[in-house]
């Protein structure tokens, strides 16, 4: 499948796009928990970034250097992010520590990301900087860790470096906290191609000027590229809500959309689910959502029930169900790969057992949502195990090619070569095409996506080291969408230790597993299944095969290996004796 031709991007680099936006009166509005607003015009964002860039250069940051950024959603993020770009350097946004978070895990993950991106400087807001000590100590960036206040930002020092479109414009991490983070390196040209493709999906700007609202984190592709950079590129107004404030008070999002007569807002499924569940009626009184014409939904498996539930609850506030637009994408392709066509989201019902067992799409009870067709400039193929293109309604691996695909994983040529061949990016996701539209139904890469955040399976599995009753290194963590749930949940398939005491069944061990994972990762497993030793499928070299385990689980075929106990042995012996006898008889005939 091929998207329409890509309209030539209107700018060559993010730096040029920001300079053009600065000539308009538009800008970014920050909303706090009490709906107090701070408006920062693009003109001011540009001016502040020029001063920050000069200060960064003075602090020793050279063109091409990576600068890690650890900021909450705030004007300071814009200073650091655009300041880095205008210094000709490459921003690497990282997530800030969560409140009441697990700092040891946070330090370890942050240090690994700083290392992986080869950042020469970490820029953080003053509060966060105090907490970063350990991460900095471990990763030792050349220029250390500074806050904006530490930089000698001066009124007369300004810098707006011209950068090459092929130079890196962003390094983003595709997975949240992982033991092996992969830095996705994107060029300015790739970012501009992505923004041009996104803009082509919006209604004509002269007749329908767009206004955006977002609560998505700015260290994540959907919030950074899909919201902030799109607003700069378009250019048009954007309202930003810190994600933690959205979680605490989901109605903030909808109220901001109504107040600003916003036309465009994006969220993973769970954002829509949280509003249906937790937005309080008294917070919604008099709300008018009729301006919201593009309610984009992506970043995790999409639940049609959640989207329909949202449309139903907020229909009386003027929300139009046909505004909902499911999308599919991944950090390695900048952001979006496909986009659903206008109209109400479409879903088809498939038989989950047949889908898992044979890869055939036949009618059944599991609803899978169409994520539409490739965005401008993108191509897509669904391939079988031998690399051949599979016919419609057959599950295969999704590959994409186009101008917004990453340069590669930064500093990781082998990992890059495993992922991109002849320009085609292996998404690691599984899907099928039906009536010319893509349906994503699973994945072969070892990722679990919870509430829009990617987690490497290993992150969960390593929590089980030393849990009593669990066979060492014989567990897999998987993402699956349970019946009746809003999104993907965590499934743990664990083999019992051979000497496990089973007098009280598996409930005790399963509970220990739940606790261990919740304590280390903050994620609560949805389902824990205890298995006989040897049940999980393995490769010939003994490695666990996660996606095969999930396939067997969904198909109801996860069964223990044939027991080699005395009874079984005698049956086998009898069989082979019989076979032997038959052969002899045959020969003797």
């Amino acid at each position, binding site marked *: 499948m091929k998207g329409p031709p890509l309209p030539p991007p209107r700018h060559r680099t993010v730096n040029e796009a920001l300079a053009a936006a600065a000539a308009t009166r538009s800008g970014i509005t920050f909303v706090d*928990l009490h709906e107090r607003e701070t408006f920062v015009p693009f003109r001011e964002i540009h001016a502040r970034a020029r001063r920050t860039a000069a200060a960064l250069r003075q602090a020793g940051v050279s063109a091409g250097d990576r600068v890690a950024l650890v900021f909450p959603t705030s*004007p300071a993020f814009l*200073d650091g992010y655009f300041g880095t770009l205008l210094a000709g350097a490459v921003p690497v946004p990282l997530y800030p520590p969560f409140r*009441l978070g697990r700092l040891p895990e946070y330090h370890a993950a942050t240090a690994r990301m700083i290392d992986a991106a080869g950042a020469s400087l970490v820029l953080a807001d003053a509060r966060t900087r105090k907490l970063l000590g350990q991460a900095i100590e471990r990763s030792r960036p050349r220029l250390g860790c500074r806050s904006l*206040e530490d930089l000698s930002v001066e009124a007369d020092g300004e810098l707006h470096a011209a950068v090459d479109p092929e130079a890196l414009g962003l390094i983003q991490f595709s997975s949240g906290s992982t033991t092996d983070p992969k830095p996705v390196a994107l060029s300015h040209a790739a970012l501009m191609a992505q923004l041009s493709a996104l803009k082509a999906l919006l209604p004509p700007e002269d007749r329908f000027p767009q206004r955006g609202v977002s609560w998505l984190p700015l260290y994540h592709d959907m919030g950074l590229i899909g919201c902030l950079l799109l607003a700069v590129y378009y250019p048009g107004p954007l309202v930003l809500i810190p994600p933690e404030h959205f979680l*605490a008070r989901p109605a903030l999002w909808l109220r901001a959309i109504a107040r600003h007569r916003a036309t465009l807002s994006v969220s993973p499924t769970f954002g829509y689910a949280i509003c249906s569940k937790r937005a309080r009626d008294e917070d919604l009184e008099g709300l008018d959502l009729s301006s919201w014409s593009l309610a984009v939904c992506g970043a995790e498996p999409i639940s049609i029930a959640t989207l329909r539930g949202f449309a139903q609850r907020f229909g009386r506030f003027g929300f139009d169900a046909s505004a909902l637009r499911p999308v599919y994408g991944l950090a390695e392709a900048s952001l979006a790969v496909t986009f659903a066509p206008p109209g109400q989201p479409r879903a088809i019902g498939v038989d989950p057992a047949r889908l898992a067992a044979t890869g055939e799409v036949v009618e059944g009870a599991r609803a899978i949502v169409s994520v539409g067709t490739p965005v401008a400039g993108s191509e897509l193929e669904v391939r079988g195990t031998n690399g051949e293109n599979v016919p419609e309604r057959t599950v295969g691996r999704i590959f994409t090619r186009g101008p917004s695909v990453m340069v590669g994983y930064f500093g990781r040529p082998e990992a890059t070569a495993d992922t991109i061949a002849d320009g085609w990016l292996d998404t690691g996701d599984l899907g099928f095409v039906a009536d010319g539209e893509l349906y994503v139904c699973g994945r072969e890469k070892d990722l679990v996506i919870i509430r829009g955040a990617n987690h490497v399976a290993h992150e969960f599995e390593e929590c089980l080291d030393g849990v009593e009753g669990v066979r060492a290194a014989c567990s897999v963590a998987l993402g699956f969408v349970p019946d009746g749930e809003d999104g993907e949940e965590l499934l743990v398939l664990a083999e019992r230790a051979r000497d496990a005491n089973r007098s009280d069944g598996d409930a005790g061990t399963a509970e220990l597993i739940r606790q261990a994972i919740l304590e280390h990762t903050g994620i609560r497993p949805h389902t824990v299944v205890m298995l006989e030793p040897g049940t999980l499928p393995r490769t010939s070299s003994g490695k666990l095969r996660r996606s095969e385990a999930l396939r067997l689980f969904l198909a109801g075929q996860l069964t223990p290996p044939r027991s080699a106990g005395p009874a079984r042995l005698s049956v086998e012996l009898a069989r082979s004796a019989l076979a032997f006898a038959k052969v002899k008889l045959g020969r003797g005939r």
Partner: protein
Amino acid sequence: MPDLRAEILGEIRRVLSAELEVTEPVELHHELARDLRVDSMGAIVLAVALEDRFLVKLSDEDATGVVSVGDLVDLVERRSREARVEGAPESAHGRGAQ
């Protein structure tokens, strides 16, 4: 100031039941993760609500020592007293800004 502790516990109970679907009674000795099944999102919701209500900042290093409801009450109480001593309680909307 025992009233402050009671108030903090009351707010924790309110958030747990109203926002996080915790239906069982909440006592000081309950562990947030183990007994009340508060996950990372729940912790953020709880922290933001407490910061807002008691005008404190909780993204501090000592938050790692918070295991039980009692620990959280202690932490909020300590932060709240510090803010009073400094005489300039931080405004709730200062969060996120530089």
